[in-house]
């Protein structure tokens, strides 16, 4: 088996892909030479330049568009006079206006699902030193999620014969509807809000709790032992992690004095000594502990690693959505990312001051731009946790909650009380 035996006789090129490139044996992309000096690689430099350009471009566009919230009010009054002049009763105008706002709020989880799924696959790929979707859309697989959605929409919809048909069909609906309703009191920027109700926080936690029912229904009705176990596990986990999540928000509400999410965000405007923004996370002990407990509990609420025992891939095949194919599976996927977006929006409005700019001289950007950037940074933390941590075992997960998170959040409420007594 000597080297010189390789000599083809016929050399007609059968394949010449337009931009095909052959890596001769010496270039094998070994990490030893790729990571010695990353900045010397042209592709790496081009990638960094594209990323920086993207961020600056979006910031420029946001600066150009400016505040959207306050501009809506005059448009609404103009349209109202126009409709009144046509004799349309005021009641119907309000209905049409809420319907239009409703479409935009429905757009939030839908667009977020398209973006977040693609972003998670890219971030997880680059964490694992690979590239993620590249070929589907025109730039870095931009249309990957759209292609997945259309394909799932066209898949055959299997209902196992030993399944409880009605409950099996109803489960994704019961999971998805609260995931959309919950976005009503959540602000997206300065008075960019659907319903500025006063009990926003209670509403969010109340409606968020309903989707647990959907997961249990999915688990039980699929007639599959693995999904039954997944459903029961999610019942135990979601209910028990609801408590520390709510108790973590209590000090924030005590400090802000209102339950209205937009007002809590507004309360955190202004700067201590001109530099440090008055965000709740910067309150001495109470803020940091509350934020960490809320972050951990939200990761548990959205069934993401290290708390993803309901759909544990290595133990229960795919947990509660084992028997779901096609569009019903897509709905579960959509609602999971809606809850991730919700948790990030809540965290940025409770702890990071909603639309407020981190430094005084940075407030030329509009409030919704700051709000979205904080949400994206927090969403990056969710993705980062997912690709680093292993999964809890069921009983260790319960110990962690009842023996660690809950006592810490209760102590935190006491500390919040002491802080308020000191401040007043």
């Amino acid at each position: 088996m000597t080297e010189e035996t390789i000599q083809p006789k016929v050399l007609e090129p059968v394949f010449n892909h337009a931009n095909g490139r052959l890596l001769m044996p010496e270039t094998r992309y070994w990490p030893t030479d790729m990571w010695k000096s990353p900045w010397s690689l042209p592709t790496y430099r081009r990638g960094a330049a594209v990323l920086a350009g993207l961020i600056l471009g979006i910031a420029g566009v946001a600066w150009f568009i400016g505040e959207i919230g306050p501009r809506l009010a005059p448009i609404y009054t103009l349209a109202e006079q126009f409709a009144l002049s046509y004799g349309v009763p005021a009641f119907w105008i309000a209905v049409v206006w809420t319907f239009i706002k409703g479409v935009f709020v429905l757009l939030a989880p839908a667009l977020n699902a398209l973006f977040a799924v693609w972003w998670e696959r890219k971030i997880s790929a680059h964490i694992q030193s690979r590239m993620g979707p590249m070929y589907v859309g025109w730039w870095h697989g931009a249309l990957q999620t759209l292609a997945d959605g259309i394909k799932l929409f066209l898949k055959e919809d299997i209902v196992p014969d030993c399944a409880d048909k009605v409950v099996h069909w109803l489960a994704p609906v019961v999971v998805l509807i609260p995931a959309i309703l919950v976005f009503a009191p959540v602000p997206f920027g300065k008075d960019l809000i659907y319903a500025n109700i006063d009990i926003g926080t209670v509403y969010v936690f109340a409606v968020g709790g309903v989707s647990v029912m959907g997961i249990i229904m999915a688990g039980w009705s699929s007639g599959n032992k693995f999904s039954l176990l997944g459903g029961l596990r999610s019942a135990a986990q979601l209910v028990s992690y609801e408590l520390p999540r709510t108790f973590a928000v209590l000090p924030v509400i005590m400090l802000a004095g209102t339950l209205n999410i937009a007002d809590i965000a507004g309360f955190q405007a202004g700067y201590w000594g001109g530099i440090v923004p008055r965000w709740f996370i910067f309150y001495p002990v109470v803020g940091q502990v509350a934020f960490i407990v809320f972050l951990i509990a939200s990761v548990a609420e959205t069934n993401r690693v290290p708390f993803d025992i309901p759909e544990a891939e290595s133990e229960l095949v795919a947990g509660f959505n084992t028997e779901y194919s096609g569009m019903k599976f897509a709905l579960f996927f959509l609602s999971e990312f809606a809850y991730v977006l919700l948790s990030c929006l809540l965290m940025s409005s409770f702890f990071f001051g909603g639309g407020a700019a981190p430094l005084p001289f940075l407030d030329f950007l509009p409030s919704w731009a700051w709000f979205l950037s904080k949400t994206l940074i927090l969403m990056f933390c969710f993705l980062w946790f997912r690709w680093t941590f292993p999964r809890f075992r069921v009983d260790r997960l319960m110990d962690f909650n009842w023996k660690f998170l809950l006592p810490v959040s209760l102590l935190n409420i006491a500390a919040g009380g002491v802080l308020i007594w000191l401040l007043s």
Partner: protein
Amino acid sequence: MGIVLDNLSKIEALPGGGIALATSDELINWARTSSVWPLTFGLACCAIEMMAAYASRFDFERMGVFPRPTPRQADVMFVAGTVAKKMADPIIRIYKQMPEPKFVIAMGGCANCGGPFYDSYAVVKGVDKIIPVDVYLPGCPPRPEALMYAVIKLQEKMRKMTVKGGHGATPLQGTGSRKLT
């Protein structure tokens, strides 16, 4: 659907018959080919090369291939390894559990026709004796790029499918190799 898709052509009427691809077929085939979800189903040595194809160097996810553990959410089944007779029933059962349209790639000599165990008493000589196969991939085990080449060829086969022809499902066929158009 005014969605911008790369190189999506209008109705393509080919002179002299041929396949007239309406826009909806083009869109449906584009969606199906760009998100091929295989079932994590490894039998023997080819499964290790399949895992190497999902790993960092030959990243399968660039083509939208995202492995799913349950047959309900899988489009393609990579039969990677020797099909023992004791494993034949579970393979048939899993193939039936997959929703339409479903495809099968026989990866490696053992799945093609028994490979090095062609004269063994306990091996099914080729997986197309029990389920229909769309693409056979030689190699023992084939390189991860060869598996990607097989997926590219399967995508080419899928692009020629028309909804009018098979109502969006793959033709029902018990065993043997399969024509998709």
